[in-house]
């Protein structure tokens, strides 16, 4: 086995260990009453969950080390590598914060999100890419690893915020809050749908090719990895297959949009399937499981996660970033979209901290902000990298 294969196997192992941790944490919550009847005997599943999480982190780090050996550089240089590492960092952040509060609900919320991030990462090309000159610096490791760690800790704030919201929101009557929370859950389901569809069509080796006219008026070809629902600008299908009715303007990358539409459709099916099953909002279906959650503790927990993560993120995402930019790009700040979005993330969490400390935004308001903050981080990771072109578009 080569080092790359070894690293892939460790990542797979880690994925299943995260799954095991999720299951243990779920048992620790739902299985509590069995133990209670027998007396004061403590439920050990929480501890097992934590041990699984630690083992999962060890396996993840072995993935990281072997990939480092295989590629010869820190494996944080493209979308697959960075996103995977972000998931790992979130798990590490959980391992740091869990012992402070011993909150199994946090485990139940964090571990699936970690799995989702790692699964999402694996949708990107996984080959090892050579480093362009601008990335050849020891600041690659320092800057990127610190940023990922900071974002991972901030993501714990999101998990706790989400936990808080599902715990306290009144799902019995329709309201704006319920709709927004359901929208968050729907987004998560869409991501799951995207991963499942990607794996499904990938396994079937699905491809559809089009000739089309691109935005510069030149003939080009485009490959779809999911059945085309919309065709590219003046697209003509190569080979057999159904022609979509709708065509997109030239400036839109129609194959990406097609994938987005598939994911949303998949998300809708999952969402309404679950709603039909539960006969109430998904959040409302989860809520009874969270009755034992102390909202105040979770509120403080989300805040602590942000307070711990914010300086780490600032150090990695702004300070180290500026030092490296000064060395590699001749200036410490150049208003590159990624830089601007890191600044926006920084300002957002700064506003959060001021609102919380000086304006008394605790509880629900604070939890919503944690959720929005994570949305910003994801936006900066995915949208800014893939859609807005800039110096950081390496993937």
């Amino acid at each position, binding site marked *: 086995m080569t080092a790359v294969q070894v690293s892939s196997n460790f990542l797979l192992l880690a994925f299943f260990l995260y799954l095991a941790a999720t299951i243990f944490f779920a048992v620790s919550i739902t299985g509590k009453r069995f133990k209670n009847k027998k007396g004061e005997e403590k439920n050990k599943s929480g501890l097992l969950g934590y041990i699984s999480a630690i083992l999962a982190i060890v396996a993840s780090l072995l993935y990281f080390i072997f990939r480092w050996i*295989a590629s010869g550089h820190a494996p944080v240089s493209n979308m697959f590598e960075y996103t995977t590492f972000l998931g790992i960092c979130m798990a590490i952040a959980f391992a740091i914060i869990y012992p402070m509060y011993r909150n199994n609900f946090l485990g139940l919320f964090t571990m699936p999100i970690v799995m989702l991030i790692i699964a999402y990462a694996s949708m990107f090309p996984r080959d090892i890419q050579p480093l362009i000159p601008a990335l050849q610096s020891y600041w690659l490791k320092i800057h990127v690893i610190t940023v990922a760690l900071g974002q991972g800790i901030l993501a714990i704030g999101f998990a706790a915020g989400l936990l808080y919201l599902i715990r306290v929101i009144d799902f019995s009557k329709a309201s704006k809050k319920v709709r927004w929370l359901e929208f968050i859950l729907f987004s998560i389901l869409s991501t799951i749908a995207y991963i499942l569809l990607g794996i499904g069509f990938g396994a079937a080796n699905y491809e559809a090719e089009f000739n089309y006219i691109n935005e510069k008026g030149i003939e080009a070809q485009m490959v779809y990895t999911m059945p085309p629902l919309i065709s590219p600008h003046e697209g003509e299908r190569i080979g057999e297959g159904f022609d979509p009715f709708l065509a997109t303007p030239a400036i839109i990358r129609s194959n990406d949009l097609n994938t987005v539409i598939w994911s949303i459709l998949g998300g809708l099916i999952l969402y309404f399937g679950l709603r039909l099953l539960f006969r109430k909002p998904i959040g409302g279906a989860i809520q009874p499981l969270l009755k034992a959650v102390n909202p105040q503790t979770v509120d403080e927990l989300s805040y602590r996660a942000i307070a711990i993560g914010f300086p780490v993120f600032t150090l990695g995402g702004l300070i180290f970033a500026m030092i490296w930019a000064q060395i590699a790009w001749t200036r410490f700040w150049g208003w590159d979209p990624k830089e601007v979005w890191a600044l926006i993330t920084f300002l957002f969490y700064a506003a959060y901290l001021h609102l919380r400390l000086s304006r008394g935004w605790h509880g629900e308001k604070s939890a919503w902000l944690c959720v929005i903050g994570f949305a910003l981080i994801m936006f900066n990771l995915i949208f800014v990298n893939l859609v807005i072109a800039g110096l950081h578009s390496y993937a």
Partner: protein
Amino acid sequence: MEKVKCDCGHVNPYGTYLCESCGKPLLDDNQSLADMRYEGVARRSQTYSKSVVDKVWNFFSSVKVGIWIIVLILLASMLGTIFPQEMYIPAGERASTYYEQEYGVLGKLYYQLGLHTMYSSWWYMLLIASLGISLVICSLDRVVPLHRALKTQRVTRHKGFLSRQKLFSKTEKMEEPEKSIEKAEKVLKEKHYRIFKEDGNILAEKGRFARWGPYVNHVGLIIFLIGAMLRFFPEMYIDEHIWVREGEQVVIRGTDGEYFLRNDEFIVELYDEEDERFRESFERTGGNPVVKTFQTSATLLKRINNEGPIGLGTEFEEIMQYDIRVNDPLTFDGYSLYQVDYKLNELSEFTFTLQRNEDSSEEDLSDIQFTVDLFNPELVYEFENGYRVEIFQYFPNFYINDQKEPDTLNRIPDNPRIIFEVFTPEMNPDTDRGELSLVGVQVNEALNGDNNYRIRMIDVDMNHVTALTVRRDRTLPILIVGGVIFMIGLVQGSYWYHRRIWLQNRDGEIWVAGHTNKNWHGLKKDFETITKNTAIPMPLDQTDDWNLIEEVEGVKGKDDSSTSK
């Protein structure tokens, strides 16, 4: 403004909410809990509102206003990333046409609103400046009275202060309360609390310096912003660009003719396409070569006699040799030279020979060979056998302009064309008109009728060109100081927590109260240790109306009903 004298004897400034010394609530706010923000001190902003200065001060001292400024900067910053900023549009494109061409109506609007240069616009600067002012005023408004209050705080606190803390409880009259307090003191000392005693009462305090964290980081930010502002003074900041051809020596712009750079060799290294590690990646991306390194081996020179124009007599001293690479700039005397770009195989020299069109004559012209430097061509080439070639006109980057005339785009020899004039030994260059021909790569046209002579290109020489950025940024040290102070403050305020525990013996009853600015969970744990080791009870969380046992029962009930379905 009248000062307020508390029952305990301490004189507080007007507007004080909790007495700085004993904590007695001086203003009744009808709340069950005391608002402990900034220790209930009187702040200047809440006291004066007469003059314009007061009004400005009050406006900027509000955290609410500060947050609005942050949010406005945040939202504005988003706008600028919709389309690329002007410095990131392709070189040579004009902003006035580029945005509309590329992004349509929205692009035009983006350009017209000035969003393509918005980060240097007056209104963005104004927002940043207001943030700076807000930082200074907000901090001053709070840090001074807060410092005074924490310094003058007494151990023995007013009843109203203790009972209105979030964590509070009191015991019944008990035997020997002093012993319990003494034991608690030991426990707290082990937990590294600082203990203050007064009349058998205790104030245990830990991590007070965390309270200064926010102010320290604000100072750092202000220094950083000042440093960033200094950039607008030309002395502080130089940003120049030089192209250096292999073997060429040029003056380094921005150094006032003091430093020169010679490009000894420029190399580009590509990744090995056979490299097994990257095989999959190369396959996926279609095997385009990926650059591994580009590097200028350069010699830095300094001019010795610093006066007068540069000429043949100018002497240079070699300072150092350095391989300049991306991520590895050459730094000297406050300047840095960065590898930013390159151009391979730029035409540099053409070598020509002269031929007769009908080779009937026995005349041997093979001695006539001359080389034209495409950057700095000599205009006249004379040969021993009396022949003479002149450059009539030179177009380094040839094109036909709007007037349908030949012209050059710039001085870079990307598409060089030369009009030569050939004089035979019999002709007089001053009066006669020689044969004209236009010569370039794959081009050779006679311009004035049929020519007897033909200028033939026999050799081409090419050269690599390196592009370097010259930078001097004297604001960096200030920015570094600001950044370091900011980080220290951030860590100080985030990773340490200010905790205080009050234990008071009031006629045999023990009153317990606690306060922290962040980590209530940690403070409760400290109380748990006290409770374990002494007779002092765990204080109640007065905001916590939630009861764990009941709720667990509730879950049980619901779960049971769902499983029975």
